[in-house]
């Protein structure tokens, strides 16, 4: 039997979700293992949602949003594009494969393109096979190390001591949304990776010796092409510098 992947969809209410409704009205068919979730705008596509999807056993995630320049909320699709690219880097470094995440920008009227997108993506994920994140079963430490998944093996060591979170200078949430996820270290990494200052305290603090600093360096190199996350410049604001 062919492998049937579980593919989760995050659909923008203005384009992807509307287009999926139109596809229904026209009674077009696509693979039933595509599970849609509606968002008001892709600007609200949180990294946590993606993390949770992969941790719970999704083999792929397809994000569908408005074409460039057509976002109802002006730049939600651009924000999502950047976030998806950053997350793809993480998937690639971890050995899960960046092809398991895709963002497609479509008009709500492009029904046949939507169907092609969904079926094409499911086919692509089916070829990749089940997600290694699920296979390697991060929560149990019994499974043998498999080749090419060095980092996943590293992260398996995480025993939720939250030391990395405690020492991180940019991690300051009162209530931790990711604490309950199956693997804290990966979730935490995804949460802070783009804002990381590169101080390296997390690696020093980790009692299990997960090489957090090294993987962050790898990721940061990939992020270079994405452009800055903040518009703020480094250093002190000019008006705050007192001239002597």
């Amino acid at each position: 039997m062919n492998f049937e992947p579980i593919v989760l969809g995050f659909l923008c209410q203005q384009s992807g979700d509307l287009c999926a409704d139109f596809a229904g009205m026209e009674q077009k068919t696509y693979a039933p293992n595509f599970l849609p979730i509606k968002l008001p705008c892709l600007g609200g596509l949180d990294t946590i949602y993606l993390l949770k999807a992969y941790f719970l056993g999704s083999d792929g995630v397809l994000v569908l949003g408005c074409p460039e320049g057509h976002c109802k909320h002006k730049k939600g699709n651009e924000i999502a594009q950047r976030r998806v690219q950053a997350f793809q880097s993480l998937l690639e470094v971890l050995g899960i494969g960046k092809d398991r995440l895709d963002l497609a920008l479509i008009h709500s009227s492009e029904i046949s393109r939507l169907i092609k997108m969904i079926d094409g993506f499911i086919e692509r994920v089916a070829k990749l096979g089940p997600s290694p994140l699920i296979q390697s079963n991060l929560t149990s430490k019994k499974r043998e190390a498999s080749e090419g998944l060095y980092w996943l093996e590293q992260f398996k060591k995480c025993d939720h001591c939250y030391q990395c979170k405690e020492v991180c200078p940019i991690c300051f949430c009162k209530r931790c949304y990711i604490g309950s996820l199956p693997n804290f270290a990966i979730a935490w990494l995804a949460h802070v990776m783009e804002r990381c200052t590169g101080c390296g305290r997390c690696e020093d603090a980790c009692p299990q010796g997960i090489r957090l600093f090294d993987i962050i360096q790898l990721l940061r190199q990939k992020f270079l092409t994405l452009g800055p996350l903040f518009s703020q410049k480094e250093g002190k604001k000019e008006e705050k510098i007192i001239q002597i």
Partner: protein
Amino acid sequence: MGKKIGVYICHCGTNIAGTVDCSELGRFAATLPEVSVSRDYRYLCSDPGQDLIKKDIRELSIDRVVVAACSPRMHETTFRNAISSEGLNPYFLNIANIREQCSWVHKDRERATEKAKHIVQAAVARVTHHESLEARRVEIKPSVLVVGAGIAGIQAALTIANEGTKVSLIEKAPYIGGHMAQLDKTFPTLDCASCIFTPKTVEVARNKNIELFVYSEVINVKGYVGNFVVTIKKHPTHVDPIRCTGCGDCVGACLLKKGVPSEFEERMAMRRAIYIPFPQAVPLKAVIDRESCLFLSRGKCKKTCVDACKAGAIDFDQKEEVIEKEVGSIIIATGYDPFDPHLLPQYGYGVYENIITGLQFERLSSPSGPTQGEILLKDGTVPKSIAFLHCIGSRDENAKLHCSRVCCMASMKQAHLAKEKTGAEIYEFYIDINAFGKGYQEFYKRVREEGIYFIRGKGSEIFKRDGRLVVEAEDTLLGTPVEIPVDMAVLGTGLTPHRDAEKVAQVFGISQSADGFFMEAHPKLRPVSTNVDGIFLAGCCQGPKDIPDTVAQASAAAAEAISLVAQGQVEVEATTSSIDPEICAGCKLCIEVCPYSAIEFLNLKGISVVNEALCKGCGACTAVCPSKAARQKHFTQDQVLAEVEGMIT
């Protein structure tokens, strides 16, 4: 305390039950945590269906409701009203879309049922996290903005103004009327376009409730339904509209003797730098074109127009004005552009003389046009044979795929006029004749009986042989290629989206279909609304239309706008964001991503706050907030995470 969730599964006749096993789904739903009742019913949206839910709320004290049925776009409001009539907060409802996104798109019954289970499980998981929310009510400003003053905009503006509501009518050109003002006669009744149209344009100028802005553009739109703030840029005409009497003395005095091609005459005639577009123009005021005026473009002119104007209306120092207007709703009627036949070089447009577009033919045929209504060739002689080519730029994979709807009838009307005026041999090259309207088929029959040759085959090329134009086509009825020498060829150019459509879409935040026309909220049931509440569409900006359809749609849009104003208040979604001041660390990332500048930074407290009146609920701040202080109502992290969990497991 546990929630009491009621799950209701709709069969929708066989629409859902045909592919999804509803009773199996019902049994599955009953096993889900916190579900106290699960029922399936043939048509939940019917009164007995709604009563089923209401009864359970009353008798079983259900406090959360999941309805597995069609898209929330269809009946979310229906069911919200139903549960709120029983005193339950309307936001305690969650719709699981198992029709459009499940039963209608999958064929395999077993797998469709499996997917429906996932969707219902996700909806149940999500609804436990729903919070009681109050829909906000906002006042509606009792005025309407109409963008574009062609027949659609004028019809809409007049309908609204007659009801007593204030209208601001914006037109980009220096006169109103749009393309209809250029037409000679209208099919199928052969009414003279200006005879039926001029009374309307004059009424626009006279009506006290209409404020007319010509030579103006909307450059920015802020706000939301009921409370739009529109910024209008009024270009300088350099003629004081109050003093100008429209006498035309200045036009004769203009030193630009050579002239520039007139836009109104479709480049069939020349105009001066100062000009009155056409004799029936409203407003009948002269206008100076900045680009061709010798003084304004080069700074060198004796300004003879100033001397000629006895009213002293010409003012070269006039500056552009920026005006802000507050309106309750907006009607977009920006119209179309005719297809540019330069893009299909096989038709020789612009290469050979006497190949003209349909609109150019209208000007030739119009009694107020460059030839006073005579159909003449460039050299002034009467043509002995004329070819009309249908579907230039429409129904063409190399140009536009859509049918422009009006060109068949327009071409046949022009053929009739040409036959009547010149007695020439007329050839119509067509793919199919789309004579869809009232009296149209009869008109087609009448034209055929007038001795006009109909050749079923699209004109493929126009070239010159022995000094004459030759139209090449394949006669698909005879199955043979034909070449017909003619004196004049008229290209039935299609209707394409306005060249500024993309800009307009961005300014107003509305979307475009794949063909570039503006998109309606629902192709069947909401054809004049857009995806932005309070913005409506009229006329060809939404898709090609003939005049009766345009007038009908414009009246419909006006009715929608009036009904909104008459309500006085409107409910807006409660899905705004808020920032928890206890958690916010003041990193300002949310301020950077907010597209509506709805978040402010309080310097004193060192935190950011959301202005809920400006927030439109896109959720960008919630995703970017590193400490998750920002949360969007009805799309909180808890709710979406629960949905993800329910969907996958």
